[in-house]
């Protein structure tokens, strides 16, 4: 059932990390004895440090975004499992240069709790820490009675924009403020046609019929909010964009950045076909698309499917989105 290029299911994260460090010695170093990858030059003096993290299986998130202009460190959990507080704390120690640390957290109970505990431990040591919780997934209802929306591909825009401001020497407050602005202005929604298989589980995350799809999917192989008959690319794109626009409510003439994110097994060809429709709809609504990103930014192992993300841009965000970045997966 499980066809993977692995050795032992329990070792995938360890071996991936070793492979990454071997492949990118100019960019990354591993904090010894941990699953934390940080910038080669960490801690960077006089700079607010950014840490992101979460379960593995979302590559290139998050270690692919470690480098100048984006993240200082990534803390890697087991596949789809939040990293533990001790690991996050090691990450904080490795990147902190005294100007404070921003923790970029996707809104999942596990991530929130583990990062919170790490932040409490760091603060107890006198390290200045702020947290930003990303919750861009409009598939999930956001109310005080729920855990709120999930964080998905929109998180990468937070890395980019907050990272660019930090690189300019801004304070922790400033970096946190701009991260909050991105979170307010970014919305996503995803869908999948096939499940994925967590190596240690050895079986697909759900069963799905030959002509079915899941709409409103997250990035952990979980079922979506709705199962329906597989539709055309145009219909799927329309549905995802409609939900995103409904929630974000951009005005005609607004500027935006678009991300069409592949979940793992979907060819670039199909992502561009989705994008064709997305860009047509945005043109109709008179949304000015300033920049477009089509590819795999936040995956869910080998799931077939995609998500559509829209980020409303003002001048500040546009400038920071365009600022230089030099990481494995994002170069500008």
């Amino acid at each position, binding site marked *: 059932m499980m066809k993977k290029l692995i050795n032992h299911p329990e070792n995938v994260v360890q071996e991936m990390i070793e492979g990454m460090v071997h492949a990118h010695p100019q960019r990354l170093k591993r904090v010894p004895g941990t699953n934390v990858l940080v910038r080669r030059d960490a801690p960077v003096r006089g700079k607010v440090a950014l840490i992101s993290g979460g379960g593995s299986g979302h590559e290139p998130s998050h270690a692919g975004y470690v480098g100048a202009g984006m993240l200082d460190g990534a803390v890697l959990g087991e596949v789809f499992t939040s990293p*533990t507080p001790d690991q996050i704390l090691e990450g904080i120690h490795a990147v902190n240069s005294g100007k404070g640390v921003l923790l970029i957290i996707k809104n999942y109970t596990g991530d929130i709790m583990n990062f919170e505990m790490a932040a409490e431990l760091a603060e107890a040591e006198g390290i200045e820490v702020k947290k930003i919780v990303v919750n861009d997934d409009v598939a999930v209802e956001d109310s005080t009675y729920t855990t709120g929306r999930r964080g998905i591909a929109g998180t990468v825009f937070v890395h980019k924009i907050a990272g660019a401001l930090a690189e300019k020497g801004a304070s922790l407050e400033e970096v946190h403020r701009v991260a909050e602005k991105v979170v307010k202005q970014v919305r996503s929604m995803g869908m999948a046609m096939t499940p994925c298989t967590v190596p*240690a589980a050895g079986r697909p995350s759900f069963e799905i019929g030959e002509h079915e799809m899941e709409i409103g999917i997250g990035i952990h192989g979980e079922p979506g909010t709705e199962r329906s008959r597989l539709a055309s690319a145009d219909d799927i794109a329309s549905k995802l964009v409609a939900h995103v626009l409904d929630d974000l409510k951009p005005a005609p003439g607004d500027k935006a950045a678009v991300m069409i994110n592949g979940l793992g097994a979907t060819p670039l060809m199909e992502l561009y076909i989705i994008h064709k429709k997305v860009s047509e709809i945005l043109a109709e609504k008179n949304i000015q698309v300033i920049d477009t990103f089509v590819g795999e930014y936040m995956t869910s192992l080998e799931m077939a499917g995609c998500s559509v993300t829209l980020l409303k841009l003002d001048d500040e965000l546009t400038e920071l989105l365009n600022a230089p970045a030099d990481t494995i997966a994002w170069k500008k």
Partner: protein
Amino acid sequence: MTLDGTKFVNWIRRANRRIQENKDYLSELDRAIGDGDHGINMARGFAEAAQRLTGSADQDLGALCQQVAMALLSKVGGASGPLFGTAFLKMAGVWKGKDHASVHELSLALREAVNGIKMRGKAELGDKTMVDVWEPVSRFVAEKAEHLSWRELCVFAEEQMDKTKPLQAKKGRAAYLGPRSSGHLDPGAVSSFFLFEALCETMEESGGDR
């Protein structure tokens, strides 16, 4: 009737065995309404906890509890790691310096554990989480006090676990499924039941019922 260091270690080792045996079952439950890793997470954490205790000569319940807490916190990850970790951390606080715990002292520790879980996870009774086992169990122990029957507690814990099945999840990953989360047991409620079942069996075995 009292818990001591040896029984505590036996409890955790028994809980570990139960979790290892049910690793796939727990993941299967999590696959239905979560992300399918609960068994993997718990198995990784309890294996570590059991292993750390095995070498330990400590008889201080607080210290033993603390070791379990740290093992769970640093090995489980996900949502259940900080929650089970916090539970044992809080129990460690209550039992610090004690090498015996009466049922009353157990109920005090459980009360703190439940407070810790709820503080960390912000879930309430009925949200379809592990709280739905921990909170009633803690109350049951407090109410029965010295009249507690381990066998009854075990049956009671299992009933609480079963009650999570029809509920719609309001916290954790299962909450994203909305109404689709009904009709499935909550994985964390099931692993919590295993933990209490192991406690009851350990106490029963060593002391007989009551």
